[in-house]
């Protein structure tokens, strides 16, 4: 009897199991139907997902309310579904030892990710290789050599959605440096955290602007400048609210370029300081020319050291002559001379360049600009009441001696390399032809013209004296003869 009872008990087990499975299936179908028919309205989308999200993140989850919130929640649910597997592990604090011996944090804060612009994007959209069962692990025998290398590898994954920005980035000096193998040049992820991307607009310029990481001295100069100060004072200049520029306003965020050559810098300044021509023309002769060839910082960074910067200019194409890929003899020559500690005669460079292009129609001249000596100085813009307004700081012969002369060459990657040049050559007769616009009233008189002026002055004095003396002598001679 007992046995029989026992048998009865065990015979009920399969029925119970079947019942439980049926309940689970029914519950699942019902739940799926609910999800399909009506948007989820709970604070936490699903019990499973909620289990994966820390309590602190749950508290931050949006509350039920209007349709917009409902939409967000639906998307959230969708994302959580897509990324559930990944976040189950990667939501937790864990690291991976890389081949270079450093540890890489693998944690992705679910809520931050969901709140970000990437909140709707599934993990494998970017981590494609992982989606193809190539998750780095001991099992798959796939490892990561270094964080940098992984970031370089992942950089192109942004292209899929951000094609335009990616193209702009590819044309930047930063991308060129990455291609050259730089281990510091920024990648997409250097500025944008892919798991919690923030718009550049929301960056706190003074604290977390990524440019600072590499360009610290320039950033410090900027911070102390009239622009940086205005920014820190809540963009307030003389009691009025003015949006003061941050790095990307002048250098762009993605198509980052050096502004030192051509009129890029002036154009950038004028973009905000619209009435700059009018204001300068009230006192500055040849305003247009000054604004063309004198970098704004030369006067507006009053303590900066200045230089005459020469660059080769293609007069036919009307553009600064940039070095092209595989065409670098001048740069090599310059580099060789620089390494020997020598200085260069810009005219020799001009001649060499012309020589290089023999057989083609070329019209190349050396063009000059007044620049500040360093990138740091270019950012030390002071309040305009401190701007230099003394003409003779450039327009007197001695000023040349006080200022440096460099020859700049635009490299294929868009960067500008400057070499010290022989300032004496600029005053020579030959410079008149080659350096067609190297000219500052009084700033660069040639010695030959100085000598000619002295001779002219001497003639103006000697001719009257000579003629007068000749007259005296003739009169005396004749008087003696008559006696």
């Amino acid at each position, binding site marked *: 009897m007992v046995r029989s009872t026992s048998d009865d008990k065990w015979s009920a087990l399969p029925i119970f199991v079947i019942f439980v499975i049926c309940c689970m299936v029914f519950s699942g179908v019902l739940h799926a139907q609910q999800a399909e028919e009506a948007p989820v309205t709970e604070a936490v989308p699903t019990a499973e997902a909620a289990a994966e999200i820390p309590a602190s993140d749950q508290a931050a989850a949006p509350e039920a309310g209007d349709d917009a919130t409902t939409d967000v929640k639906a998307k959230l649910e969708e994302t959580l579904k897509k990324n559930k597997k990944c976040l189950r592990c990667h939501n937790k604090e864990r690291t991976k030892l890389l081949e270079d011996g450093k540890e890489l944090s693998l944690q992705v804060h679910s809520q931050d990710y969901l709140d970000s612009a990437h909140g709707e994007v599934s993990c494998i959209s970017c981590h494609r290789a992982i989606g193809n069962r190539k998750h780095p692990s001991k099992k798959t025998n796939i490892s990561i050599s270094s964080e940098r290398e992984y970031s370089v590898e992942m950089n192109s994954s942004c292209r899929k959605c951000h094609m335009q920005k990616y193209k702009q980035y590819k044309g930047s000096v930063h991308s060129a440096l990455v291609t050259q193998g730089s281990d510091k040049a920024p990648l997409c992820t250097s500025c944008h955290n892919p798991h919690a991307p923030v718009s550049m607009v929301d960056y706190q310029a003074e604290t977390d602007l990524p440019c600072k990481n590499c360009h610290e001295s320039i950033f410090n100069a900027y911070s102390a400048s009239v622009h940086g100060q205005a920014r820190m004072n809540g963009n307030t200049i003389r009691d009025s609210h003015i949006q003061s520029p941050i790095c990307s306003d002048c250098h762009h965020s993605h198509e980052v370029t050096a502004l030192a050559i051509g009129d890029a810098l002036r154009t950038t300044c004028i973009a905000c300081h619209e009435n700059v021509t009018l204001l300068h023309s009230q*006192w500055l*002769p*040849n*305003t*247009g*020319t000054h604004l*063309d060839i004198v970098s704004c910082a030369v006067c507006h960074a009053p303590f900066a050291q200045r230089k005459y910067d020469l660059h080769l200019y293609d007069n036919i194409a009307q553009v600064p002559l940039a070095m092209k890929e595989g065409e670098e003899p001048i740069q090599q020559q310059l580099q060789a001379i620089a390494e020997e500690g020598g200085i260069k005669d810009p005219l020799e460079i001009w001649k060499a360049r012309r020589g290089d292009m023999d057989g083609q129609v070329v019209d190349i*001249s050396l063009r000059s600009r007044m620049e500040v000596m360093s990138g740091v100085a270019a950012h030390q813009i002071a309040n305009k009441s401190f701007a230099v307004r*003394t*003409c*003779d700081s450039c*327009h*007197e*012969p*001695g000023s040349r001696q006080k200022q440096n002369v460099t020859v700049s060459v635009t490299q294929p990657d868009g960067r500008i390399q400057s070499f010290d040049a022989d300032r004496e050559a600029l005053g020579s007769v030959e*410079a*008149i*032809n080659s*350096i*067609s*616009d*190297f*000219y500052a*009233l*009084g700033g660069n*008189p*040639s010695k030959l*013209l100085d000598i*000619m*002026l002295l001779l*002219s*002055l001497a*003639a*103006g*004095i000697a*001719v*009257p004296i000579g*003629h*007068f003396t*000749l*007259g005296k002598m*003739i*009169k005396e001679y*004749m008087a003696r003869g008559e006696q």
Partner: protein
Amino acid sequence: MSNNTPEPRQPDAWIKTKDSVLYINPLPIRIWHWLNALGFVALILTGTHIRYAHLFNLMTFETAIKTHNWVAFAVIANYFVWLGFYLFSDRITVYHPELNFRKFFDKAFKQMMYYGYGIFRGHKSPHKVLPHDKFNPMQSITYQIIMLLVVPIQFITGLMMWDIKRFEVPIALLGGISTVSTIHVLIYIFFVSFTLIHAYMGALGNTPATHFREMFTGYEEEH
């Protein structure tokens, strides 16, 4: 006036203020000449200041530039007083070149001999000053070149440097601003000695003040 002297042409009625054939320099020319003289001196001084700012401390560079520009415009306007007068007067003949080279060189040689020797011996100038032929051959060729070539070039190059942007195209045609500046400076260098020698030669009249006085009154005194 002796009987041998050819009967001179009568000057235009509107120029003739007094009944004299020796009225050589009419009022517009006298005004032009002295304004031009003052202008040239001011331009040379401010020009020198601009070019050699470190050697002079008379004014700021900015003032030198502004003065130079304003005086230059006055001198250019004044040039048209001279040009207008001669274009609308029969006295333009004083600037007509002597096309007979043999005659020209002969007269020029005689004039040079006069300046190199005769003048000290009290000889009369081989050139007879007349309202329609007031310049001796050396003056004639010098002033033709100066007034019709050198001075206009100086004005044009100066204008170009006054507003480089506005005259970008002609500047480029001339080979760039350095070339334009060099031409301007070369002419300035020429005018430095010209002005001094011109003033000295002005003092070679009967008395050192004679020619200066003539240039104020308009009348030739030596006849």
